[in-house]
């Protein structure tokens, strides 16, 4: 990743993180503010409900008291007490209930039997004894479920006694709690309902939103409030689409049992909407900020990183061998000083390299001179001796001169031939021919080389065994003459490495897109340093080597776009691996005499 890109990323992350932090803080503050408002609104609504509840309770008390104290009701009680037929009073309560707008009104006999029921006329005669438990009749209104034909209904009730000559008749009147809910005017976003929990049967929700409530979601909260007799809150979906904070407040009833739970739901829509807006605005700000930041940073970093990029490019050029490259060091800042230092360093390095090349060239010439001196000195000495012998024989023993001359001439010819061989090797190395590529069966080539050397190996005093393990190898692309020469050099090298005999092994195998030939010996092996320098021209570990054999091998393999490696362990022989690219299918049709460059191109290099 470039420095400029890093800087851009850093700036973008920085801006994004800053905006996110600010947005988070704003959101948290807004959240807190909403919570405060929500608590205030809920508290206000609950207080309003309590006021309406008390007001409705007082209204009911007044209504029931008005009925109980009316002359007509007192007359009814007297008549009933005097043994009047209760059948005549069956419909007595309905007009009273209608006049006083009561949803429920029962006239109860002293024994608890219903004489008249406004809301359920058919229930006459059945006993209502829940309030006749010896305790004083409550004077305050209370919540209780009232049985109706449609089921149990949560009602705000009041009991009053109508006395008739020592007998107590009772009036129980009340209204549905829905009326209290309907009197409420919750502000927008607030919803209110009551869960009615009858002693038997399933509960129901009261209020305008009762049909949209989801009992499965609300019941755990309601049950918690009922069990603990205290308020419980939770964030739930009030209905299908409104996530709300819901407060469940248990309502006290006639007994210890909670008959209903007030539910106040404060919609989080506004808060969620604001949070969404903050998020959206933050995203826009962050996006714009990051964009501007990237643009500005790109401009700034362009100014900063351009000299550095130039330096990097110059360094790359130097790496590729262009030592003449220089960078502009016009500025006086750190980058300018760095550029000047780079230029100085480049000049210094170029100078050092020049000197090093000069030194290496001198060393190479010295090595060549040493090698040539050494190689030429050996045949020259016999030549000198032979010529001196000829001179001595002419002067001292002329009669044997002819014989000596013949012997000396043979020697001279042999040594001259030796000299020519040496010179020819050097000449060959300097004039390595370009390979003429064709499809070559590597295994066949190895077999022919092994066969060629079989005779020589048998003549060797030390016994050298051969082992040939040739695998399934496709044809390789190469010049069979040069490859044969390279293999022969490796074989000769191995034979030289085993003066006391050993085993010479040939192995071939296919390896991906190439074929591998391994030639290993069981000689004394090579040191690590020897391995590193083995393919250097004129380097040899042998007494009479020219140091060109393995250099030729590497040259040939390199010309074939292959690779040659050596692995060895001191004392346990060495193994040379020659890796050659396989011939392509199309190359089968190529003329072996084609230009090798055409092959290279065909090989995809």
């Amino acid at each position, binding site marked *: 990743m470039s420095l400029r890109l890093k800087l851009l990323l850093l700036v973008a992350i920085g801006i994004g993180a800053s905006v996110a932090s600010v947005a988070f803080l704003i959101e948290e503050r807004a959240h807190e503010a909403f919570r405060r408002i929500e608590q205030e609104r809920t508290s206000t609504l609950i207080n309003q409900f309590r006021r309406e509840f008390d007001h409705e309770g007082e209204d009911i008390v007044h209504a029931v008291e008005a009925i109980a104290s009316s002359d007509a009701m007192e007359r009814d009680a007297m008549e009933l007490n005097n043994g009047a*037929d*209760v*059948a*005549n009073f*069956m*419909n007595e309560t309905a007009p009273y209930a209608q006049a006083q707008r009561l949803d429920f009104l029962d006239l109860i006999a002293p024994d608890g039997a219903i004489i008249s029921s406004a809301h*359920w*006329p*058919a*229930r*006459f*005669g*059945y006993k209502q004894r829940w309030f006749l438990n010896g305790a004083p009749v409550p004077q305050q209104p209370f919540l209780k479920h009232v049985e109706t*034909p449609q089921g149990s209904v949560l009602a705000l009730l009041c009991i009053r006694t109508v006395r008739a000559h020592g007998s107590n008749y009772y009036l129980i009147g009340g209204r549905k709690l829905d009326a209290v809910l309907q009197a409420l005017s919750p502000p927008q976003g607030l919803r209110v309902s009551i869960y009615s929990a009858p002693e038997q049967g399933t509960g129901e929700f009261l209020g305008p939103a009762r049909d949209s409530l989801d009992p499965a979601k609300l019941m755990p909260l309601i049950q918690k409030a009922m069990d603990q007799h205290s308020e419980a809150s939770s964030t739930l979906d009030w209905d299908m689409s409104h996530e709300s904070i819901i407060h469940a407040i248990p309502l006290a009833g006639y007994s210890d049992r909670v008959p209903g739970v007030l539910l106040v739901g404060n919609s989080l829509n506004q808060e969620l909407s604001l949070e969404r807006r903050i998020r959206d605005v933050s995203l826009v700000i962050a996006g714009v900020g990051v964009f501007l930041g990237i643009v500005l940073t790109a401009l700034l970093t362009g100014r900063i990183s351009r000299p550095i990029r130039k330096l990097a490019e110059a360094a790359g050029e130097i790496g590729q061998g262009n030592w003449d490259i220089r960078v502009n060091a016009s500025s006086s800042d750190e980058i300018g000083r760095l550029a000047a230092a780079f230029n100085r360093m480049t000049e210094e390095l170029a100078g050092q390299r020049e000197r090093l090349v000069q030194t290496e060239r001198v060393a190479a010439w010295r090595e060549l001179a040493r090698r040539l001196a050494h190689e030429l000195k050996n045949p020259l000495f016999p030549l000198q001796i032979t010529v001196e012998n000829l001179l001595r024989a002419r002067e001292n023993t002329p009669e044997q001169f002819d014989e000596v001359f013949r012997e000396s001439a043979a020697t001279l010819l042999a040594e001259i031939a030796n000299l020519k061989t040496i010179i020819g090797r050097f000449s060959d190395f300097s004039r390595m021919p370009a390979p003429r590529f064709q499809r070559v069966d590597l295994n066949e080539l190895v077999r022919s080389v092994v066969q060629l050397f079989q005779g020589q190996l048998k003549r060797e005093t030390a016994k050298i065994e051969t082992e040939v393990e040739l695998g399934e190898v496709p044809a390789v692309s190469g010049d069979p003459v040069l490859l044969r020469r390279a293999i022969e050099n490796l074989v000769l090298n191995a034979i030289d490495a085993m003066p006391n005999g050993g085993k010479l092994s040939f192995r071939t195998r296919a390896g991906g897109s190439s074929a591998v030939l391994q030639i290993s010996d069981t000689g004394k092996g090579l040191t690590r340093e020897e391995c590193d320098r083995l393919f250097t021209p004129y380097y040899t570990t042998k007494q009479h080597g020219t140091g060109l054999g393995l250099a030729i091998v590497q040259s040939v393999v390199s010309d074939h776009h292959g690779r040659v490696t050596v692995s060895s362990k001191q004392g346990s022989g060495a193994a040379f691996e020659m890796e050659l690219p396989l011939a392509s299918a199309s190359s089968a049709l190529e003329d072996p005499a084609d230009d090798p460059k055409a092959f290279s191109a065909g090989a995809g290099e």
Partner: protein
Amino acid sequence: MKRLLSRSAAASSLVLVLLLAGHASSRPRYGGTVHILLHDRVNWIDPAAEEDSPAARDRIASLVFETLTTADQRGQVHPLLATSWSSDLSKKIWQFRLRLANFHEGSPLTAADAVAALANNPFAWKVTAGDRQTVDIESTTPVPFMPEVLAQKTLAIVKRLADGTLAGTGPYRLSQWQAGEHATLTANEDYWGGRPYADAIDFQMGVSLRDQILQRQLGPGSLAEVGLDQLHALEQGNQNLSVTQPADLLVVLFLQPDSAAGGTGKKPVDPRVREAFSYAVNRSAISNVILQKRGAIATGLLPQWLTGYEFLFPSRDNPDHARELRADTAALVIIPPISLAYNYADPVAKLVAERIAVDAREVALNVQPYGESHLYKGPRSAVHADAVLLRLPLSSTNPSSALSSLLERLDAPQQSIASALSASRPEELFDIEQKALEDFRIVPIAHVAEAVWLSNSIHNWQQLPNGMWNLDQLWVEGAR
């Protein structure tokens, strides 16, 4: 002298007028209009047609259309359009001799008219004309009380005219008809029995008497049907009331969904549940409180005062037994709620149905009452209820005729209806009733009286014990 004579004549005339006025309240007078306020609404006056309020319809129709026979207050059958009748010994073939009478449009009554009217009788009798004035009725089973049966209002002789209108022979003719709202009948001047006293009878339907009861004042020349729940207030106001014997049968009929016809897909209520239901109902409370002691507990189909044997049926008010039966049944099957339909226009039926639901609730049976608009009209299979609460009028003061009519309305098998028509002895009728009640498909609740509130200017009001009105002798005070 002349002047003296004229003064004497004037004085004599005045005395005569005063004398006549003194007798006015006790002697029938022609003229005037009687206003009748009906609680129910009648949509079609045809006596043979199905109607949501058949009793109210019969009250209007009986003034326009006449039957072959009629019954008096003691239940004795008398000639009406038939002057005489006879039967063979088997009581299967009956012959009725028609009187000379004219239909309202002027045509004379003939045997062919009677045959046409009775052709679609519910008992599948074969009705033929013997001669111009003789009608032969042949039944496959003996019908010993054929004249009493023919007094049923649904068997009135109605002539269907080409223009679709109906003509009768009754003392009043239909002059104005507004279905469900209003009907005006005017006196038939050519009535074979003589012109009726009142010029017209005006029926107002669907009337609520709330205001009149509160003021305890009914208009002059008016009479009104009143509910039993309204009686107490009127009695306290010393109003002129006429209350019949408890004649109408209040009964719960468990419906048999007709699976063959596709039906409603509902299953009939289990017989054990029906039995528990029967024992759960507190008939005493219904009779004493809801029916204001103007009803009687029904253990059979016909009332005790008519048959004398109803007391032999065991009382079913036993909630403990109902609870046991219900528990035993619940151990074997799941008991679904029982939907009970009642006539939504009948406040007493509503109250009784709700009371039945309360009583059933006490024995853990779930009965769900609801109002149905067409309980008496159309096929019962159209009613989507498990049971219906019916108020069936006593169609005849003859037990055999009344029972056959009740059984027909309770969807009893034709064999039972035929048996009721054939029965001549009380023990036979008792057996038929007992058999009809044994599977608890029919659960009698109460016999209900009918009450009428009359203004003091109405005279000669006659009501049969079974609740039927006889208005042909009705006259209004101060008419002429």
